[in-house]
């Protein structure tokens, strides 16, 4: 889904963040500042690095996911002048080291690109309809949402 200078993709297939960023740069040669964020799957559960996880499945709400991303980009565009933005988010099964989400923003200068990129990932964590289930050899468990995510998103509320 794209339009008005942004693209959103929600997909089962793996993506190559480097290739995506290079393609984005090629599309935006006149943007002085391009910022990016990659979320990747870790091989441990929570903060306990000894509890390994082997795989993760992401469930999602098709239709609403794309809508939410479009809305977040529209919000970001209201606050900062952006030349382009890209969000790619996977669903389905993935393994440690796999990229899950990519956010890229382009603007004339670095301040807008960096701020918008951080805004998008902070809000995406609280609004995008995806749910992670982690599995180790013997069990599988739904990841719980973190209060910290809500707190980070709240920081962006305008006074």
């Amino acid at each position, binding site marked *: 889904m794209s339009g008005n200078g942004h693209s959103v993709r929600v997909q089962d297939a793996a993506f190559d963040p480097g290739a995506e960023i290079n393609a984005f740069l090629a599309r935006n040669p006149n943007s002085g500042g391009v910022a990016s964020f990659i979320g990747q799957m870790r091989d441990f559960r929570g903060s306990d690095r000894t509890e390994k996880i082997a795989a993760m499945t992401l*469930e999602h709400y098709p239709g*609403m996911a794309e*809508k939410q991303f479009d809305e977040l980009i529209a919000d970001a565009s209201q606050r900062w002048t952006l030349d382009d933005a890209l969000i790619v988010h996977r669903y389905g099964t993935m393994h440690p080291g796999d990229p899950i*989400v990519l956010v890229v923003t382009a603007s004339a200068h670095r301040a807008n690109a960096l701020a918008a990129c951080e805004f998008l990932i902070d809000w995406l*964590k609280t*609004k*995008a309809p*995806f*749910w992670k289930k982690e599995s180790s050899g013997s069990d599988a468990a739904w990841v719980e949402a973190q209060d910290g995510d809500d707190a980070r998103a709240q920081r962006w509320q305008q006074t």
Partner: protein
Amino acid sequence: MTLLYFAWVREKVGISQESVTPPDTVRNVDELITWLSSRSAKHADAFSDRKLVKIAVDQVHANARADIQGAKEVAFFPPVTGG
């Protein structure tokens, strides 16, 4: 109206979606949850702590007071964990 369930809400209810026609007295999400819980033990279990279940009406985040009259789709899910 189509109801959608995701993640552990889906596991507790036992289905990912269903089509329902609530009575006219059911006007908002809270009343819908009460009605669903009265009809099935699995629904009652899924909604036993309403604070844990988030809502979207026609693919827009909503709260329990949201009006559902005329809604095509209501989804129930845990707090999101994407990204």
